[in-house]
């Protein structure tokens, strides 16, 4: 059943708005800038878009807001709110819509001016039994990190390795928002936010927007950019509030990963580059374990010694990630955009040699929803 979506569709265009601190620009304006750039990238016109898969913040009706702003009348509209994983999830529904003939040119987009507007991210209303205790987004991630440390001996040094690796990649990305040098010692001595997570364990809050244009594989071949094929995608959830997560050391990526890999017909050893939603350093560690790159509990030692940093065996979050490149409220779409850059061989100084298969993995809520996608270059079809 599932393999019918493998390589049926491809990402033909990508666009990033100006990002970082973009004062004076609304979230809709940043979104529109990213869409213009994605259309330029793939040589299609605004009027070609007949499917819209969107989330923007802060807007209660994101899809009509995007369609109105761009004056689009799509045949397919989708805006399911799965937090930061929404955008990798949109890949699945855009692929299905195109394959079923419901639409031909799908736009996936996101925009936020979380930094300039000071409107805090996530689209979260008060969560019963959590918010009343003063719990914030970081709380759940801190609780997961503390439990992982307790069960497996993971240390703050292991988490610092994740932050330092992300910064190393950011220093190779001229557009990354934070480029200052960062050492393990710097990360360990930074201000604590919610133990065991300190300042450098937490993602940035930036402005920014992204857009992805998806078409059928046949159509993508005739467009200017090298196609990036959607080889596999799967979504899983485990909870909304952290008290309901059965095991804080195992995310739903342990289920979304194998299903996405099965659809793609690959295993972790085939993956050349990983873009993992790193809202906090613990995310990267958990997802490496849950996606099968190392055994459960061994994530800390596995990623240490610069393994996921530039020059390491396993390139992870090559744009600098949410920790050092950008994180405008929700980061999911940027995992896709960086994966496409890498698979096109267009990533400049941070380019991973011969990148042919990439993972773009979205996380939503408080480790609540996990969506894994496998993307491939021309040699995979």
């Amino acid at each position, binding site marked *: 059943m599932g393999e019918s979506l493998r390589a049926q569709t491809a990402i033909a265009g990508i666009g990033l708005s100006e990002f970082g601190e973009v004062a004076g620009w609304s979230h809709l304006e940043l979104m529109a800038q990213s869409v213009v750039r994605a259309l330029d990238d793939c040589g299609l016109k605004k009027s070609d878009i007949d499917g819209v898969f969107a989330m923007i913040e802060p807007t209660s009706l994101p899809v009509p807001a995007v369609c109105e702003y761009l004056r689009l009348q799509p045949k397919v509209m989708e805006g399911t709110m799965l937090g930061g994983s929404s955008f990798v999830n949109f890949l699945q529904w855009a692929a299905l819509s195109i394959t079923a003939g419901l639409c031909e040119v799908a736009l996936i987009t996101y925009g936020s001016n979380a930094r300039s507007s000071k409107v805090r991210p996530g689209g979260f209303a008060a969560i*019963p*039994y959590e918010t*009343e205790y*003063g719990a914030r987004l970081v709380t759940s991630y*801190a*609780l997961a990190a503390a439990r992982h440390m307790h069960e497996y001996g993971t240390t703050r040094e292991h988490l610092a390795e994740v932050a330092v690796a992300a910064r190393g990649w950011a220093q190779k990305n001229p557009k990354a928002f934070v480029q200052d040098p960062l050492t393990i010692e710097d990360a360990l001595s930074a201000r*604590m936010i*919610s133990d065991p997570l300190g300042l450098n364990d937490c993602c940035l809050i930036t402005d920014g927007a992204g857009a992805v244009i998806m078409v059928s594989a046949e159509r993508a071949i005739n467009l200017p950019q090298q196609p990036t094929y959607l080889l596999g995608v799967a979504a899983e959830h485990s909870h909304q509030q*952290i008290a309901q997560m059965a095991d*804080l050391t195992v995310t739903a990526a342990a289920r979304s990963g194998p299903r996405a890999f099965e659809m793609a017909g690959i295993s972790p050893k085939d993956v050349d580059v990983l873009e993992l939603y790193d809202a906090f350093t613990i995310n990267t560690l958990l997802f490496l374990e849950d996606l099968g790159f190392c055994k459960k509990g061994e994530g800390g030692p596995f990623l240490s010694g610069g393994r996921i940093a530039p020059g390491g065996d396993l390139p992870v979050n090559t744009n600098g990630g949410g920790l050092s490149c950008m994180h405008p409220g929700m980061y999911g779409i940027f995992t896709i955009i960086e994966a496409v850059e890498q698979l096109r061989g267009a990533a400049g100084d941070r380019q991973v040699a011969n990148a042919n298969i990439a993972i773009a993995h979205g996380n939503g809520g408080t480790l609540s929803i996990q969506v894994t996608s496998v993307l491939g270059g021309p040699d995979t079809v």
Partner: protein
Amino acid sequence: MGPEEQYQAHLAEGDIKLQRCDNCHATIFYPRVLCPDCGSTDLEWQTISGHGEVYSTTTTRRRPDRGGDFNISLVELSEGPRLLSHVENIEPDRVEIGMKVQARISGGEEEGYRLVFDPMEGADHG
């Protein structure tokens, strides 16, 4: 009255009661219309021991002028379910995973009642 209001009403009277499933015997938190495990709607309110153990814990850093650092823990009740709460009457950073704790009703009519936890009497707090 729905299950959540019933839970609140019990707390207002000083009773810590959770639903227990007549079919699969799971104790349920938060209060629900059906058992999240087996789907049965045969649920009965039962007074719980209030005994629990810290499953995970974090010190939330907060500026002193806003009240200072405070603890947030996930507590696993001896009856099974886990809830997010505070462990109070101890320095926040002295709360440890595995610590035995005892539930106490906090809050009031206005803001709603809720469970918080204290270190269990006689337990070793290291």
